[in-house]
């Protein structure tokens, strides 16, 4: 059965209860996350900000099932996922979660189109369907003419747009973005901001970990973290749609 079908479309898309994550032992013990309580509504865009090492990326990895918590619970669309087997988690990621990383994490030997079609192939779609979906997504991110280029032949912004297209390949319930503009210059940042804004407008549930206040400003809600805990929560009244370029100060 498709893992996505076992998920509830009502209620919060993501929820954590008393989420904890520790690394190391004894004197070397590091508490990366400390009793985090979180709810992300379906269609909501949540931005998580905080200094380096505050636990933002760890939170994202736990939400996406890439790591297992030391304590607490993680729920995705009404299904508890922190106790699932690695196999079940993989299937869940395949169908319900899209990742966007700061380092892009594209496969160097695959073209843009091949990178984008990969999740669809892993999900068992036919090569033709996967390729068609990739073409649609690359068109959506404005990279149709770069489809057959290798990542090394693309700019940083183009690589990140490919990564976003790849994250959307299987129409995930949630997109988790970890510093999506962290490695980009200003112009590329603007491209990615526009894309994320389009996703938000289309009702895609988004959790974005960022240092960038401009990205945070596009969210519906902003959570600030420090030392593994949430320290502040701000509702941004449906984001800053329409004022993006002004906020970013990137267009004249």
């Amino acid at each position, binding site marked *: 059965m498709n893992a996505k079908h076992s998920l509830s479309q009502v209620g919060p898309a993501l929820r954590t209860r008393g989420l904890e994550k520790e690394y190391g032992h004894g004197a070397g013990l590091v508490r990366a996350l400390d009793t985090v309580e979180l709810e992300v509504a379906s269609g909501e865009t949540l931005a998580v900000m905080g200094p380096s090492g505050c636990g933002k990326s760890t939170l994202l990895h736990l939400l996406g099932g890439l790591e297992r918590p030391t304590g607490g619970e993680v729920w995705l669309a009404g299904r508890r996922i922190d106790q699932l087997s690695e196999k079940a988690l993989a299937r869940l990621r*395949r169908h319900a979660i899209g990742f966007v990383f700061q380092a892009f994490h594209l496969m160097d030997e695959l073209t843009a189109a091949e990178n984008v079609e990969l999740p669809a192939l*892993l999900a068992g779609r036919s090569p033709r369907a996967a390729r068609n979906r990739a073409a649609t997504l690359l068109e959506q991110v404005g990279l149709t003419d770069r489809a057959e280029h290798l990542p090394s032949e693309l700019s940083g912004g183009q690589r990140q747009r490919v990564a976003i297209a790849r994250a959307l390949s299987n129409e995930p319930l949630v997109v988790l973005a970890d510093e999506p503009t962290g490695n980009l210059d200003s112009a590329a940042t603007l491209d990615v901001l526009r894309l994320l804004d389009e996703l938000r407008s289309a009702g895609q549930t988004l959790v974005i970990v960022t240092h960038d206040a401009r990205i945070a400003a596009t969210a519906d809600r902003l959570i600030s973290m420090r030392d593994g805990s949430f320290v502040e929560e701000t509702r941004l009244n449906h984001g800053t749609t329409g004022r993006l370029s002004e906020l970013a100060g990137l267009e004249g």
Partner: protein
Amino acid sequence: MGRVLLVRRLAARDLRRRPVETALLLLAIMAATTVLTVGLLLHGVTRGVYQSTREATAGPDVVASVMAPPKGSRPADFAGLQALTGAPGVSGHTGPYPVVWATLGANGYRLGAQVVGRDTAPASIDQPKPTQGSWVTDGGAVVEAAFADAVGIGAGDRITLNRRSFQVVGVAVTAAVSPYPNVSCFDFCMPHAGLVWLTRADFRSLSAKGRPQGYFLNLKLADSAAAPAFAAEHNRPRVPTGTRPSESDPSPPRLLAWQDVSKASADLVRNQRQTLLTGGWLLVLLAMASVAVLVGGRMADQIRRVGLLKAVGGTPSLVASVLLAEYVVVALLAAAAGLAAGWLAAPVITDPSAGLVGRAGAPPLTMSTVGLVTAVALGVAVAATLVPAVRAARTSTVLALADSARAPRRAPWLIALSARLPVPLLLGLRVAARRPRRIMLATVSIAVTVSGIVAAIAARIDLRADTPAPGGGLVGLESPLDVSKADRLNEVLLAITITLVALAAVNAIFITWATAIDARHSSALARTLGATPQQVSVGLSAAQVLPALVGAILGIPGGIALFAFVGDSTTIPPFWQLLVVVAGTVLVAAGLTAIPARIGGRRPVAEILRSELA
């Protein structure tokens, strides 16, 4: 000086940091150098033993014989044989001794034997030396020691010769003929017929109508070194070239120099030597693949270390020197260990024959053997290390520090093909396509191993086919030839096959591990995108199984060609045996790669992805 010290220190510490890899590397090269050493040493292993037998038995310089064809009308040229005693250069002789072909029965065997009538008094030339019992007496036979050993008889046992019963009163060695089963063959003889001595009186009672079928004459020359020339001179055909001998012409004597007998004695180990040398070179190829895989794997794991070394001022040549020094040290140690092990193993493996006095001692290690084995070991290390070492030295420091120096290769047709396959095969093919050199090494490694196995199978088949019918055409049980000759060769073949398989297994594990390390990022990414750990593990394993299949298929013609080259005959093993070899190879490859692939497929995803940002 400081630079040498630094290279030594870095190389030593790196080797110590990886004791298992270092030990396996040492074993891989040592296996090749040991087998090569044994093969090279076998060349002289019987020479010393034959010499001592020759001294102990007052061995002749030349043995001359005349034989009457079993059904021919020509008589043996007895006069021609007698005339040799007065030939220039001859300083003494014993004989002629009469010879007759007989059937020996003992321990359930019925075998061909050449029976020689001898005097009971000791002879001044060629007096066989009893290793058991005594010399011939009336009613008592003496059996050549290697023949007795093969048949399993000793002094006190009873044998039959042409159904007449004799007691074995002794077992003796001689230098006049090479030991059983390579008994020197003259103009007419039964192949592999053992030697038995009787008194002249017993001989007369045994031979048909008291008439011998031939004669042996032992000659001593004034210059024993001139024996081959003397034999060649008197072996010249007496009948002018282009004319056929008439039926009434006597069959001329055939002469054999002691040097030829010595060589025939060495032929006892010729097959083992050939097998060991061939196996040794196959192992050298595998060892080279092992080193290349290890170096490649370590480069995948160490690229950041190379970057650090360069960042703190290490020059490209320093980096290359450190890498080369590590493997040169291991190669030198492996060469020394292989030479020692081969030197000790050579006499044990050969045990030339019970038909010679004493056992083979450890043959001398010549400078050429030491030089060749050391050069091969160093060649293996340098050939396999040079390319990665130079590549590491040339790597950009920044890229090396970012651990992204080794960009994967792209094979568009393979990527397109893999899109149509199930997920594990999709991942496996793409992983394989990223590192074509490593896949080539895996394929070559398996192809070399399977070639060795197929050649060994062909050799066994050929050995069986070569073995004459028991007793040289006589009815009987399994010939002891199988025991004495085939078993020795089979043991050598088995030992080499096991070593080849072991080395190939180590290679397969190394290659999988190196692939798992190298593909850790793409594997982690695939899992992030929804591939299960099992799919990734099967994919990593498939990346090795596919080359194993190709290597196994290539190894079949390779093995047949190898045997045709070494064994001088074309023997194709039965189809079902080849099928078992291919299927077995694939199954073993799948089994061996399963564990490293499983570990590689289950590494923590987040940790790997995070490390890419570090």
